[in-house]
């Protein structure tokens, strides 16, 4: 079966900097893969590449059977990204926001209502303007927006940040439920204990490259220390500024 994510020597730039400097990664259907690494390792960039938001400039990149960057639009419709920005409109209520983004992704009314219920925003909170919600409640609202579109590939960037323990448990439960229904999850997190307990596999990144085996089934024990050995320098475009390797 074709992997949901297949990257080979993939290079992606942020401006002129190679934020991904030749990455290899395979993720099978139904897997939960945790990306770990220091700040600047390329985790967020990798998630945005997988979402079809940043075009790879070198190497091979296939997501959900579509080639990137050529078929980015097809990929975007099938993924859900929970990023650093909440993508919420402060003046609108939680229900308005989920309703707007749900309809923008062709979700039905039932999916939108179900999403609100799943994150606990089906009571009084649904009609509260986002500007009056706490950071955790906003995060829940963003999660509901993601749930409403029923993505096949969940891309979660620091999903536990800003959530209390109950909300983190809720998020983990929703991720497990989605995976049991056939979704695939790639996530980054600095909350390693919780994230590693959730993930099937951990992939370490540093300096824009993977530093652990990336094939499905190559388990990395939770909390295991991995040797960080840079690959040979990737074949970068001439106008790219080479950045020093960061371990």
């Amino acid at each position, binding site marked *: 079966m074709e992997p949901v994510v297949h990257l080979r020597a993939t290079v992606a730039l942020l401006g002129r900097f190679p934020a991904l400097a030749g990455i290899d990664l395979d993720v099978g259907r139904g897997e939960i893969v945790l990306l770990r690494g220091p700040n600047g390792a390329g985790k967020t960039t990798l998630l945005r590449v997988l979402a079809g938001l940043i075009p790879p400039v070198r190497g091979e990149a296939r997501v959900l059977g579509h080639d990137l960057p050529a078929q980015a639009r097809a990929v975007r419709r099938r993924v859900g990204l929970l990023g*650093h920005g909440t993508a919420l409109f402060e003046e609108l209520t939680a229900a308005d926001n989920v309703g707007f983004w749900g309809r923008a992704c*062709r979700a039905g009314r039932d999916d939108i209502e179900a999403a609100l219920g799943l994150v606990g925003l089906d009571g009084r909170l649904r009609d509260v303007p986002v500007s009056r919600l706490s950071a955790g409640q906003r995060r829940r609202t963003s999660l509901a927006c993601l749930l409403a579109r029923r993505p096949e590939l969940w891309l979660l960037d620091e999903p536990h940040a800003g959530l209390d323990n109950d909300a983190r448990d809720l998020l983990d439960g929703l991720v497990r439920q989605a995976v049991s229904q056939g979704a695939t999850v790639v996530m980054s997190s600095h909350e390693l204990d919780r994230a590693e307990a959730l993930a099937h596999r951990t992939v370490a990144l540093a300096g824009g490259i993977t530093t652990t085996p990336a094939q499905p089934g190559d388990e990395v024990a939770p909390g295991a220390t991995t040797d960080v050995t840079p690959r040979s320098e990737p074949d970068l475009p001439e106008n790219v500024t080479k950045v020093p390797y960061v371990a």
Partner: protein
Amino acid sequence: MWRDAALVAGRDLRVEARSRVTLQQVGPFALLVLILFAFALDPARQTLERATPGLYWVTVLFSALLALARSAALDEAGGVRDALRLSALEPAGVFVGKALAVAAELLVLEAVLGLGVIVLYGAEPAGIGLLLVTCVSATAAIATTGTLYGALVSGLRVRETLLPLLLLPVLAPVLLGATRAFEAALGGAPADGWPWCGLLAAFAVLYSVAGAAAYGTLLEGS
């Protein structure tokens, strides 16, 4: 596309209704400009009456800059642009929806300013048909052009100051056409105003087509 346009226009208008920025800030600003023009030109009442069409449209244009900046800022909030790109919305629909929302706000503003020039400048409405068509055409031109340029400068740190610098010269023909059409209507010679309305309509169509075609590229590039 029209379904997406209605969705986006509904969102922008709902945000506007809740924030009341047009009602509480743009509207008072526009009336203040009208009053300041009246203070500046009041000793020469005839000058004020003669300049009423121009002053009206200059005020509309300045107020439109605020509304357009506000409209563009809505999609600048954290993660919104990415979410738009990840959505199934047609970029042309997003463009049309945003332009429609701005146009609706401007039409309300123009109605209020119309009452303002009657009260403050002593303008006597005439050629109502021409006035209405001019308002609709000029508003469409301002909203489509402003929405397109708003997307063009989005993502830039200097977008708030750059937008008026880019937009005002481009909208000069709209100011000219709308002013001439109003002069013709208020001067009792509406036949002279219709060609200017044609210019405004052509301008609006041109920027509607350009905006719908280019908005996807601008969304990707910003």
